[in-house]
């Protein structure tokens, strides 16, 4: 059984009298531990797809089964719980809370999950160490470089040990070499078994994925699988 199963997904936005089909007749299934790049021109529906997968948005039609469960019919609180425990988000613009330190930003999902402070501190300290941020723990985002910010964001996305990581152009705001570092970090997580779904415009990054979903006008144009690149 596939971890993610989308069938006949429609997502329509109404702008005045005109309707935009951001996603149209989209069906795709993704297995646990896959490394998927979502690619396509601007406005083709990549972010919309990712938001749907992350339960931040609901489809107008179609079903979405996550780990065998139909999640489109869940209540908002149940969806929040799924987001909290099964999904990690990484954004192009990092989305760190400016007044909180790196450690506090990483601790946010643990705090929302109601995990006691002692355990929280231990897990945050470990995560910061894993991502090479231990010396930056008490710095606020504006005191960090872009690469460091994205590493904090990735540490935050993985702190709850999610099953799926959704990254929307995670290297879009980073220079080339920092971007590569971030890509490697995400790939290491995937190697450890986490499903990784990355939206990217970068053909090099896309080429590294073992599976590419090519989108256009809200449809899935190509679903390309390649054998894993030889290391």
């Amino acid at each position, binding site marked *: 059984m596939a971890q993610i199963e989308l069938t006949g997904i429609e997502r329509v936005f109404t702008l005045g009298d005109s309707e935009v089909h951001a996603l149209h007749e989209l069906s795709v299934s993704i297995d646990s531990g896959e490394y998927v790049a979502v690619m396509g021109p601007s406005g083709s529906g990549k972010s919309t797809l990712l938001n749907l997968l992350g339960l931040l948005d609901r489809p107008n039609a179609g079903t979405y089964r996550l780990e065998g469960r139909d999640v489109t019919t869940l209540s908002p609180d149940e969806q*929040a719980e799924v987001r909290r425990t099964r999904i990690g988000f990484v954004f192009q613009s990092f*989305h760190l809370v400016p007044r909180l330190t790196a450690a506090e930003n990483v601790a*946010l999902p643990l705090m929302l999950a109601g995990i006691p402070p002692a355990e929280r501190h231990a897990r945050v300290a470990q995560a910061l160490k894993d991502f090479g941020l231990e010396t930056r723990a008490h710095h606020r985002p504006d005191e960090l470089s872009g690469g460091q910010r994205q590493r904090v964001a990735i540490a935050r996305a993985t702190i709850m040990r999610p099953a799926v990581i959704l990254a929307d152009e995670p290297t879009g705001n980073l220079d080339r070499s920092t971007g590569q570092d971030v890509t490697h970090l995400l790939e290491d997580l995937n190697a450890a078994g986490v499903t990784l779904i990355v939206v990217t415009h970068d053909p090099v990054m896309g080429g590294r994925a073992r599976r590419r979903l090519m989108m256009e006008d809200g449809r899935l144009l190509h679903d390309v699988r390649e054998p894993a690149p030889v290391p």
Partner: protein
Amino acid sequence: MTPADTLRFATRAASGYPLRTALMVLAMSIGVAAVVVLTALGDGARRYVVNEFSALGSNLVIVLPGRTATGGFGLGNLVTSTPRDLTVRDAQALLRAPLVTRMAPLSVGNSEIAWGGRLREAMVVGTSGDYVDIRAFRMAEGNFLPREDLGRATAVAVLGTKIRDEIFGSEPAIGRIVRVGDRRLRVIGVLGKTGQGLGMNTDELVFVPVATAQAMFNTNNLFRIIVEARSRDAIAPAKQQLEDIMRLRRDGELDVTLITQDAVLGTFDRILGALTLAVAGIAAISLAVAGILVMNVMLVAVTQRTAEIGLLKALGATGRNIRLAFLTEAALLSLAGAITGFALGHLGAWGLRLAFPVLPAWPPDWAVFAGIGTALTTGILFGVMPARRAARLDPVQALSRR
């Protein structure tokens, strides 16, 4: 999310925007401070009046010359024009009323008192021997004025403690001959310390027999007559009897005013009741204004932090988590405002007491609780709307805001 975490998160959010927080705390604190200061003023005035009049003694009816048009008691009525004088004969006639136990006429004037080269100005009160009992004064030394015929101008004087101290210092006063105005009087007693009463400080008065005072000031009329009724219940019928006697003596026309303590206190009750209402009104307005400010500031906060709210939702925050976080923040700001306002209000009340030492301007407990309670309630009530708006934000759109 545990309550402790919600509180910590809200505290960090409030302290993360110091200017906004300071502004809101200020607005809220002004409201609460206004309540504290104004009620301190109102209650101080009430206590002042009650103290003044209870210092008078109980069961009293005060007779003053002149008829007031409304029959009510106002500050202006105390200095009415005098159509016909009030005399010692009138005073004596009042004792015929069956429900009256004691009576003291008052004749008042400014003069000076001198002894052994020391001289000071003093207010001289001419009265009778019963005055000390009616007012329930205590003697420090010697006796009060003798109980004798009101027409006798005996050359004796009783001093207030302050006068005695200033004129005689550590030397004995009883038996000494002092000069008061153009008369030489023998000191027969010194009053115990009494403090304020009806706007005159009794400690700074010189008491002499009423006839002595009238001769000194070359007059026949009295300033007041103080009459004591048999009991509290007898005050109203006694007043009626006194009015009948006066009307008889004035050929059917009542040209004096009779004031009872109840009427005086009742009038002040009404005045102070209105004052309290006004205070409540001002407080309500200022707190409502503060509440609206809380709402706007929180709405701005929600707009400012839209991306953050979207992020929290993406990280798995429920609507309830977000609602509580923003509501807690509003409550915290109101609480800080209430506490600051409480401190500011007490500072203001202290200033009032400094400026008007006679006024016991302490805010009553109920007002303090009501002020702080209302501040918290308004803060939370007006915080609900922004908090709900935050919780309802669409996460996708919230996240795309930058």
